[in-house]
């Protein structure tokens, strides 16, 4: 451990890495603070750069970028009532109302510190839980991997916002697309229509670049957002006030951290969902809960949800690194980059590449500390961030989408995939379908299929093994709990409400 740690420190302490981390941090804040441009989009646009970096700087850039973007999503919420990323959507009303009442600096300052502490908490959970979980995962066979992937698919639909029917349809689209190409277990070509290009299947990275990048450009061009003039905010004494406010709500913050970490650890559910769940829990548990999102705005839900979304960013790396099953859409992209770099996530990573792993941990903590000064500057310069014209931004995004897709396999097929998924993503969003389940279906589909086929071929179709192996059974029960989540949520909500008058 000490040996690995000292090796990790020497890996982290390089100018190249520090430069990459700083640049990725600024980039993350920039993308995150522009409404509509999500952290996933930021990660997708990083892909072409990540290919030219060593594994560690590539991973570090995605980590730093994503923690910054998730915080920066708070900035336009407070200033123009538009969440910068979906992770900030839960508390946009509270932020904006606080700003209108002259307390915008406090809202953003608290958001910043809650994000940083949440991120560090999530990072610590990752550091301590991941190696333990990896030891358990070493005993996993195809049955257990099957269930972990099923758990991911379930979480992707059930613990999402909005219509679960639409979530399921989106998931099925992803699952269907994942079957294109050579069948993973017996090598049979499916839906290739005799084209040898399609034998390789649909790579999920260009698909994601299209879904999250190009579709956003289409949306912007087809229906340009109204120009919003941001409110100026006074940043004097910002951090001090924010720190004391955060201290007053320390219980809420801890609750947000725990919820965020727990949800992030679930495969298929990340920071976006963590923020909504934490918001709901804070609301149910608070005296003024029913007034959240109205009146002059409340700081408490910002504390809870803002610490949860960043805690979720860190713990989403747990399933990604331990099982090779992404925690959310950002880690799905990271997974793709890792595979291209020849780093195969999974429990063996914890033995064979321990220094790399410890370096990832260090980067996590460092990125969240770096967030405080960078975030402070971003809050001060927030007016400027929001004034970058779309006519400059959109062409740049298109260029990166094309270059990024091409760089995956040096072929035009991937650029075509990106274009098709860009249009698909636009249409789905117009019809209010969530995009994340498409991606998770695409990524998890082959994992489910492969492990199912392996399992049944091993035992000649003895399906009882899926239920009777102790770890399989435990994972199955966890999946059922997630399936029952909507019912449980109502029950808990009712219980909390009954308790309140007492």
């Amino acid at each position, binding site marked *: 451990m000490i040996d690995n740690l000292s090796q990790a420190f020497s890996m982290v302490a390089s100018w190249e890495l520090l430069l990459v981390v700083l640049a990725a941090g600024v980039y993350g804040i920039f993308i995150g603070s522009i409404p509509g441009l999500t952290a996933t989009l930021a990660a997708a646009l990083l892909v072409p750069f990540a290919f030219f970096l060593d594994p560690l700087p590539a991973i570090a850039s995605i980590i730093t970028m994503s923690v910054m973007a998730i915080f920066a999503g708070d900035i336009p919420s407070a200033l123009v009532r538009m969440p910068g990323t979906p992770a900030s959507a839960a508390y946009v009303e509270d932020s904006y109302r606080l700003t209108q009442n002259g307390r915008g600096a406090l809202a953003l300052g608290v958001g910043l510190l809650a994000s940083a502490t949440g991120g560090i908490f999530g990072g610590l959970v990752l550091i301590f839980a991941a190696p333990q979980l990896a030891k358990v995962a070493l*005993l996993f*066979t195809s049955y257990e991997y099957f269930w972990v992937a099923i758990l991911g698919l379930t979480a992707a639909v059930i613990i999402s916002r909005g219509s679960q029917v639409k979530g399921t349809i989106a998931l099925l689209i992803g699952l269907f697309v994942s079957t294109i190409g*050579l069948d993973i277990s017996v090598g049979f070509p499916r839906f290739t229509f005799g084209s040898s*290009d399609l*034998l390789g299947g649909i790579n999920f990275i260009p698909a994601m670049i299209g879904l999250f990048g190009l579709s956003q450009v289409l949306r912007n061009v087809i229906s340009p957002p109204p120009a919003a003039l941001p409110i100026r905010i006074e940043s004097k004494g910002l951090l001090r006030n924010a720190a004391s406010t955060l201290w007053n709500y320390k219980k809420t913050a801890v609750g947000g951290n725990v919820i965020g970490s727990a949800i992030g650890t679930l495969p298929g559910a990340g920071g976006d969902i963590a923020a909504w769940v934490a918001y709901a829990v804070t609301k149910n548990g608070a005296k003024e809960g029913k007034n959240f999102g109205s009146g002059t705005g409340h700081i408490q839900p910002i504390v809870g949800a803002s610490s949860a979304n960043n805690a979720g960013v860190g713990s989403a790396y747990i399933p990604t690194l331990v099982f090779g099953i992404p925690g959310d859409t950002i880690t799905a992209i990271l997974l793709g980059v890792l595979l291209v770099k*020849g780093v195969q996530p*999974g429990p063996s990573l914890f033995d064979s590449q321990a220094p790399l792993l410890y370096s990832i941990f260090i980067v996590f903590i460092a990125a969240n500390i770096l967030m405080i000064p960078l975030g402070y500057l971003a809050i001060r310069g927030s007016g400027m961030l929001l004034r970058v014209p779309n006519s400059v931004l959109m062409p740049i995004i298109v260029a990166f989408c094309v270059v990024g897709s091409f760089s995956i396999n*040096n072929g035009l097929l991937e650029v075509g995939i990106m274009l098709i998924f860009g249009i698909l993503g636009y249409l789905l969003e117009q019809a209010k379908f969530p995009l994340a389940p498409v991606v998770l279906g695409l990524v998890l589909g082959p994992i489910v299929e*492969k492990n199912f086929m392996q399992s049944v071929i091993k035992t000649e179709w003895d399906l009882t093994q899926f239920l009777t192996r102790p770890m399989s059974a435990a994972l199955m029960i966890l999946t059922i709990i997630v399936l029952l989540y909507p019912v449980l949520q109502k029950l808990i909500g009712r219980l909390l409400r009954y308790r309140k008058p007492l």
Partner: protein
Amino acid sequence: MSMSKIASRGLFHKPSRRVRVSGLAIAVSAGLLVSGCAQSGDTSSTDPAADSSDNACDISSTYPSGAIEFIVPWAAGGGTDSVSRFVGIQLSDRLGVPVNVVNRDGGGGVIGHTAIANGKADGSLIGMTTVEITMMHWQGLTDLSYEDITPIAQVNSDPSGITVAADAPWDTIEELLDDARANPGEIVGSGTAIGGIWDLARAGMLLEAGMDVNDIRWVPSAGSAPALQELAAGGIDVTFASLAENATMIGAGEARPLAIMGEERDPNYPDVPTLKEVGIDFSMGSWRGVSGPSGMDEDIVAELACQVDDIVQSDEYIEFMTTAGFGVDGKDTDAFTEFIVNEDEAKGTIMEAAGLTG
């Protein structure tokens, strides 16, 4: 997919991994820079430092006249990729022109091999062919076969190993086979997808031993690394893959090699017998070699073969391959061509017997 993943394991368990990976990244970016220059009509590409000893290989007077594209039919970061990049850099030094290594992954090698076959036959596009070229057309994935390419020179081969968990009940390959004979279908093996190279190694061995092809059943996996994890977790009984890919587990005492399918013993595992020694006249493994599109000019092929042979003989290459756990196996154009023809026939026979032809 499977091959590249398999091979990447072997590579990444070596202590010098980080150094090599960063070297790789620099090579990639350098390659891109160079290619950028080359496309704008670069004339300064002839390396003045090219020493006279290389001139022995300067057989074609007109070749090379510009940058060479070197196709890798598997993903970046895998074994074929790292061997190709090494050969690419060395070729660039020797020929004095940029050699751009380009990954065309997908479709079990079909996409990349098709790209090699479809290139211009003037030597401006070559690539690394792998054992899959002799398998995928039998499987019915493509019409493409060795007849659509010009074999230039082989650079590597790795025989299949047969590895069991440390606590497995079999001490020798004979015991394993006897058990499989007595209890057909009870023992399960893994290492690649169904119909992949290591599956064929299993099927071929069983057939040669006079057994049924399903006496040891095959569970598909995405490569030897996941198969090894299944082996350690008790999900399967035996893996078929090169011993280099199993080196970490064998070294950690968690897995035991019973035999290898090579012509002779592996110097790294002097106690592990070959199948031939136990009376099964069968050898099979993966291999890699440089090839180009069909119909290439003889002089160009000869020049490239000479350069590749020079690389394969070099100390740097032998050191690189040994460190990465790959077997050095050089064959000239004629020997490589003959080898591919024989391999193709052998694969066809096994795949037909195992019911894997499409």
